[in-house]
């Protein structure tokens, strides 16, 4: 069923139907099928034909749509959902999550609409099944990061045209949003694990364990260093970015 509505929505958009109207139409038609219990193609006919009948009189796009704003940012796992919904309220739509785990967003230049987000812990093999479960409520996938799958939904699906923003706020100044919990996590990680590793070296000066202690020690120290190093790199990059913007 979701394939039919995705196809229909794409055709309506291509015909110049505004996004919130597309979302409301698809929702309304889904509700219709919920009542009738029929198949979409049987009830409405082929998506291409039905879209044509719904768009008689709709204004086709006069030209290429004006490019929207683009913004890439990141947040830690403790803050990502709160930040996503905060920025979604400001009209930012996540297009994807890049290989560095950053949210790649766009915002329409004229009357953008608000978005809401959710995150699910999903094994890659289960993504399709979870996507199908969430689709009837208007959620669509917008990116993955390891076992985290992110979903977006236009607010128009809930509140209709009221989801439009008349005066969206300016783009947030920052691009990295680490929470206090994240810094606490890093601090605890370093404070607990590093002394633990040093202690282990004293307790087991040789390699009498079942596996190579030096390897374990190296691994833990490496993890700690990696985590600390990544944090430093991200913070330095952000500071440089801000400095460049300030020029």
């Amino acid at each position, binding site marked *: 069923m979701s394939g039919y509505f995705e196809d229909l929505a794409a055709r309506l958009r291509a015909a110049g139907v505004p996004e919130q109207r597309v979302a409301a139409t698809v929702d309304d038609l889904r509700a219709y099928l919920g009542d009738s219990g029929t198949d979409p193609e049987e009830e409405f006919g082929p998506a291409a034909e039905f879209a044509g009948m719904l768009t008689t009189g709709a204004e086709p796009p006069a030209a290429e749509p004006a490019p929207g704003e683009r913004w890439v940012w990141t947040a830690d796992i403790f803050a990502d959902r709160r930040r996503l919904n905060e920025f979604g309220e400001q009209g930012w739509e996540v297009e994807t999550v890049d290989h560095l785990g950053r949210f790649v967003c766009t915002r329409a230049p004229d009357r953008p609409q608000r978005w809401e987000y959710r995150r699910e812990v999903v094994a890659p093999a289960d993504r399709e099944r979870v996507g199908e479960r969430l689709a*009837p409520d208007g959620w669509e996938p917008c990116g993955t990061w390891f076992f985290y799958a992110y979903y977006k939904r236009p607010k128009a699906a809930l509140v209709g045209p009221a989801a439009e923003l008349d005066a969206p706020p300016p783009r947030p100044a920052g691009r990295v949003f680490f929470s206090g919990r994240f810094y606490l996590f890093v601090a605890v990680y370093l404070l607990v694990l590093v002394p633990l590793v040093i202690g282990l070296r004293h307790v087991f000066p040789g390699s009498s364990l079942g596996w190579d202690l030096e390897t374990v020690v190296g691994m833990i120290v490496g993890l700690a260093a990696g985590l600390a190093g990544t944090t430093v790199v991200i913070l330095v990059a952000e500071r440089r970015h801000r400095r460049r913007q300030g020029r």
Partner: protein
Amino acid sequence: MSPMTADRRASWLKGVLDLLVLASLSEGESYGYQIARTLADAGLGQIKGGTLYPVLNRLEEAGLLATEFRAAERGPGRRYYRLTDEGRRTLDEEGARWLAFDESVRAVLTKGRSR
């Protein structure tokens, strides 16, 4: 119902469906599926969403219907339709024309059958 009878009924419906939709909203707002049910319960047969929605769209574009999308507590929201003042005026005027046409058809058919 033979295919020819079904085709004829479809043609009749095509000419009057917009008025039937307007009439189904004369007592208050409604949504797509409920409008289809109202018309089916009146004996007009099951009208598919693929036929009904384009009519609703045209009536809305013509300013005869106003719409409001409402979220549902669970599941997708619905678009509710209601008559505008112009829609009510159109229903009165065009409805009267249809009834006059119907009366003429009825008179001819009745005369033909009584021979």
